[in-house]
Structure formats: C-alpha cells, structure tokens
C-alpha cells in the first residue's frame, strides 16, 4: 500500500481517538472521531461531522488573531478525521502546582483573546492546553462557537472554574485569580466584571445551590 503510515494510539479521548503519525514527512497527530456504537446512527453522524468541520474552521480562524493552536494539515469530512501538527510538550493538567498557577494567567489571556474576537471554546479544561517550550498552545475546538454573548463567555469561565474546583483543589483560588488577571488584560475590566457576574448567575442555577 502506498499509504502506509505508522499509527500509534496516543490517547483515547472522550470524543476522538488520537494517533501519532506522519503527514508529508512531518510528525503529525491524527484525530479520528470514530463512530460510537452506543449512539443512534443519525445523531452520531450529525455530531461527528459537525464537530470535525467546526474544529478545522475554528482553528484556522483563531490563528488569524494570533492564538497558538496546532496547524491543520488535512481534513476528511467523510471519515471525520483531522491531521494536525504535532506539538511536543506537557499538558497543563499534569504540570506542578506552581507552574499551573503561573500559566493560568496566560490561559486567561488566550481565553480573553478568543472572547474578544467573538469565539467561545466550549471545553476549557487544563487538559486542552499544552505547554510547549515556554509557549502555551490551546487545542480541541470541537465544541467551539462563534458568539459574542456574555452568557456564552461566562459558560467558558464557569467550566474552567469547575475544573479548577474539582481537579486542582489545592490551588483553586490562586490559579483562578491568575486566570482573571490575564483575562482582564485582554477584555478590559468592565467586560470581565459583566462576565463574572454572569458566572455567578449560572452557578446559582446549579441544583441546590440556592439556599431556600
């Protein structure tokens, strides 16, 4: 077979399988959104196709305003596959606490830049950032959306806060502070305060969060 690429499963993610491979001689990540047998076929096809296309589009778009993401090499809509640039580095999630607190400021800046340009990420977790040679790279745009709404931007922030609260319990307040510092630098104080107050509105919607 002419198309004999080496595939190595790197991670079985929630949505997709991630393989290490090559693309035109370059080290590359192949992200395949495989058919999920538990999901109704119509629903499954809709979700996989939509997210594959969306991810590729969003990555190209955010590049235009200077956010570091892996490059998109090739997209196969039918197979729901994307070939992406391989970025060597460590996931933010797995870094030492002190480093996480520090890079949260940069995460805040990146998220601020996305929001300022009308894009919400939709899946802001510490496992979607790679620290690569002093540079922070954001990935996984399958749930991203074009939106200027305060509510949508607040959803991004709330999710990030939820992740800090659940997975990084010991450094929640410091890393959240650091995140907001970076976020404010980009979107400005007024906007940040609006988004944050919307975050508390969303939190109050949580089950049993309101004391009655």
């Amino acid at each position, binding site marked *: 077979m002419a198309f004999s690429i080496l595939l190595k499963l790197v991670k079985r993610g*929630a949505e997709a399988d991630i393989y290490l491979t090559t693309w035109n001689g370059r080290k590359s990540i192949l992200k395949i959104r495989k058919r999920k047998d538990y999901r*109704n076929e119509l*629903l499954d096809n809709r979700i996989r196709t939509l997210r594959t296309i969306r991810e590729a589009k969003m990555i190209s778009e955010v590049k235009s305003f200077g956010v570091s993401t892996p490059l998109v090499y090739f997209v196969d809509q039918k197979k729901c596959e994307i070939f992406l640039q391989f970025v060597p580095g460590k996931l933010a999630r797995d870094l030492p606490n002190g480093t996480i607190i520090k890079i949260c400021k940069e995460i805040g800046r990146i998220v601020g830049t996305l929001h300022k340009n009308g894009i919400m990420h939709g899946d802001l977790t510490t496992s979607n950032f790679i620290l690569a040679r002093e540079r922070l790279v954001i990935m996984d745009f399958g749930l991203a959306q074009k939106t200027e709404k305060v509510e949508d931007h607040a959803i991004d922030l709330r999710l990030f806060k*939820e992740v800090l609260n659940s997975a990084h319990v010991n450094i929640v307040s410091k890393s959240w502070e650091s995140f907001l510092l970076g976020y404010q630098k980009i979107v400005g104080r007024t906007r940040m305060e609006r988004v944050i107050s919307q975050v508390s509105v969303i939190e109050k919607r949580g*089950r049993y969060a309101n004391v*009655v």
Partner: protein
Amino acid sequence: MLSLGIESTAHTFSCAIIEKKGKQGRILSDIRKIYRPPEGEGIHPREASRHHAENSPQVLAECLQKSGIKINDLDLVSYAAGPGLGPCLRIGAVVARSLASYYGMPIYPVNHALGHIELGKMLTGAKDPLVLLVSGGHTMILAFLSKKWRVFGETLDITLGQLIDQIGRHTGFASPCGPKIEELASKSSTYVQLPYVVKGNDVSFSGLLSATKRIIPQGLESACFSLQETAFSMIGEATERALSFTGKKELLVVGGVAANKRLSDILTSICKRHNCTFFVAPKEYAGDCGSQISWLGLLESSKKDGVELEDTFVRQSWRIDTVEVTY
C-alpha cells in the same frame, strides 16, 4: 453496629436497618411506601408529606418486625436531612428525633446524595469510582478528591429524572414515569432530530424538554425513543469526558434512572472503550431507600458522635460537594 435509617426526601418514605461488621454491611430490612400523585401530576410537597406522616408508623413497625431487631438494640438512628422537599424532610426528621430522644440513641443527619453513593459502593464493591448520580433530584458526575466528592459535571437546569417525568406527565402518566417512557421507547426506532446540548462536562436538558413536547403529536413512541437516545447520549458523552479527564478505572451509576436498561447499555459500552469496570446499583437499591441513609449513618458513626437534638437540621438545598467526608 445496628442502625436505623429514615428516608423522606421526596416521594418515598422508607425505614431500613443495616448491621455493620467491619467494613461490610448487611441489610436486615428495608421497607418503603411511595406517594403516588394523580395521573398527569407531579409530587405535591404537602400531599407527599401528609402521605409520609400517615404511613410512618406502619413502615417503621414493619421494618423492625422484618429485621427481627428490637428497637432497644439499635445503636443509632440516621435521617436524610437534605437535599429534598422541606415538608417531606421534616417528617423523617421528626420520626428520627422522637426515637432518639425517647430511646436515648445517637442521631445523625446525613446527606441524601451521599447516601446514594455510599450504598452503591458498598453493594457493588467499587473502590475509587467516577460516580454518575442520576435521579429526579440530581444529575451529577462526581469523583472523590481530598475529603470531598467533587463535581466534574452536572446539569445546568433540570435533571434527567425531571426531564423524563415531565414528558410522562405531559402525556398523562403519574410520576415517576421512567418505566413507562422506557417501555414506549423500546417500541420505536425512528429517530427524530432533537437538540443535543453538551457544554464541556455539563449538560442542559430544558431545550430538549420543550422540543420533545413539540414532536409528541408526530408519534409518542418515536418521541420517547428520540428523547432517550438524545438525553442518554448527552449523559454518555459528559461521562466519557469526565472519565478521560480523571483517568478513573471504575464507573458507578446510582439513582433512580440507573434502573433504565438503555442507559446501562450505553454506559457499559463507554466503559469498554475506556477499559474501565462498570458498576450499577442493584435495581431495588438504585432509587431512594432507607438503606442509603442507614449505611451512611453507620459510616459517619465510625468517626463522629451523633449531634445534639437542637442541632438536628433539615436543609432543602444541601449540595453534596459541601459535605466533608471524615470516615
């Protein structure tokens, strides 16, 4: 150690007695009476509490009789102090306080949601699971980390149980409607497109509820089928995200909706993909029951003394992620 647990957070009034030896528990009896609202209606808190008050003596008597335990032999009593419906919670608390003061037993107010998890763990043998709690009151994905159950994902509006019940009631059934909807769904395989809303690890069901109501005139069975497929896939995806993020090797499903076969199938398939072991609470102990409360009371009593009578609270809004676990 022998404990009596009293559950009365919503439609179920239940008393159960568990004997704890070492780390293992044996359920000696678990008696329940469930309040049934008229068809097409949901739980009326006042009516439910009246039901609980009227049935409590009989349930308690039956529970003691079936266990073969004399009330004087009980080491403690625990009751579900929240979250739940205020009027209902108060009935359970009153029964527990009466017993505690009359018989001089230690009393433990415990968190209902935590009861679901702990009994599920005890009965299935799960050690360090990611927990999916799906019921009428909760839709949450949780994992234990430094002394507390942390929420990794949850519903942003109504719960999975509410979604199903509200569709059921809309078509004229009485809550709980899970089995009815499941049966209707199994008769169809026509998928009608419905909104699928996953936001990170969180889900939102309110739009799905409205949209499902709109497609019911096209066929109730296909509407139920599409509802289940969409809602369960959303829960499935959120669970998968949490599994992949936390790297947990066990998944435990508890709560009333855990009894649904289709949901179980979906989660089994997810566990296979992520190489993790699937545990589901046995059907008879998945929904609300006194055993959950009794077992949690026993666990807490291993590390803490009971509370004074004047500190026996009920709290309608009591999030599980605020409870510090000491045992």
